[in-house]
């Protein structure tokens, strides 16, 4: 945490926190990615770790599944799975075995990645720099546009695939030509449909990214209250304020991360359901 009280320190603090651990084609001064061949190691590390956590926990639970009376954790997992498959059943017409696991993966993974936001903002970066000597660390993978875009583009690929599979190439093309204004506005229709289709992955990715980025930023600002203004007796006022604000935002953010994970999941189901219906 930056101890200096000038504005530059504050900006530097925030900047520092919003900089990924970049390897490869990175700017040597700002440590930001300079070209395409730059890898945000922290983003990949945390998302993959959380993914591994999911797999390991599921595998361990899978080894002793109880058919009759499930224990506490299995009960919890069953609740989530029931919830997700309920959403799929409500929204998705027909049957596609990939939709429900996809929705489940998105919901749980996004939630876990979002949850990293609730870990005190300075904890992991401090450990990283203090113990491992890593200077830059951005712990929330969903505050990296690469992560959210990766998921939304995968979903987008599935949308296109199922559009072709269900509607056929001609049917999909017809949707671009005659939707939404009928056959007399073909050029307008093409533009509208292309925008509509492209808006799907973009809105998915940007919504999640924006919410989590903003949430992270608010946490940083709250952290700054105590850090930059606590000088002498002022700490008696600012420190409790920081604690209260942090707790409040934490509780609120707990709802936000769940809601964002839920929205991503539901919109994925809805978009894929739209791809599966003949009559658009």
């Amino acid at each position, binding site marked *: 945490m930056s101890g200096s009280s000038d504005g530059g320190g504050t900006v530097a603090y925030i900047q520092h926190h919003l900089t990924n651990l970049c390897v490869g084609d990175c700017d040597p001064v700002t440590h930001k990615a300079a070209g395409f061949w730059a890898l945000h190691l922290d983003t990949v590390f945390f*998302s993959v770790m959380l993914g591994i956590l999911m797999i390991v926990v*599921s595998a361990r639970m899978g080894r002793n599944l109880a058919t009759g009376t499930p224990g506490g954790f299995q009960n919890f*997992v*069953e609740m989530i799975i*029931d919830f997700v498959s309920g959403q799929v059943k409500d929204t998705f017409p027909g049957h596609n075995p990939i939709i429900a696991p996809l929705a489940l993966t998105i919901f749980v993974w996004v939630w876990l990645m979002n949850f990293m936001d609730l870990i005190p903002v300075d904890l992991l970066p401090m450990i990283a720099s203090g113990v491992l000597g890593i200077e830059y660390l951005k712990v929330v993978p969903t505050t990296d546009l690469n992560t959210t875009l990766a998921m939304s583009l995968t979903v987008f690929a599935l949308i296109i695939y199922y559009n072709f599979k269900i509607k056929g190439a001609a049917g999909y093309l017809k949707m671009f030509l005659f939707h939404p204004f009928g056959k007399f506005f073909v050029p307008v229709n093409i533009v509208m449909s292309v925008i509509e289709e492209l808006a799907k992955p973009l809105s998915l990715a940007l919504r999640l990214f924006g919410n989590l980025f903003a949430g992270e930023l608010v946490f940083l600002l709250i952290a700054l209250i105590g850090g930059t203004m606590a000088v002498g007796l002022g700490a008696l006022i600012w420190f409790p304020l920081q604690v209260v604000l942090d707790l409040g935002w934490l509780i609120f953010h707990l709802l936000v991360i769940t809601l964002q994970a839920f929205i991503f999941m539901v919109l994925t189901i809805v978009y894929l359901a739209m791809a599966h219906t003949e009559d658009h």
Partner: protein
Amino acid sequence: MNINVTLIAQIIAFVTLLWFVNRVLWNPMNDLLAARQKRIADGLAAADKGKHDLELAEKRAKEHLMEAKSQAAEILAQAEKRGNEIVEEAKEKARTEGERQLAAAKAEIEQEANRAREQLRGKVAAVAAAGAGRILGREVDEKAHADLLKDLVGQI
């Protein structure tokens, strides 16, 4: 925006995770839930069947009970009838026995009377002879007046 190779890495991570979740979490859990659903459905069906069986058994038991009751009533009626018969028989027997005894007694009385009469007859002849002898002042020869005496005795 800084889109870079992280995007590719994350897509690979996402697809891999999807594959794993499908394999490790979704499929086993789904099978489990389906199995449980089936078990519950089976259990409910078994419960329904049990209830149905119980109803049938109750019905059967009721039928058995009714049958037993009617049988009991029949047996009771038969027993009563048989009892009456036995009483009637006994009465009849008693009556005939009584009659028989009465007849036997009567016969015996008559026999006794006859015997007494025979005795008396014998004696009467002697008494009559003696009385007549006395009256006549002489002895009456019983042999001589046998016809007379016999006639006399016959009159008694």
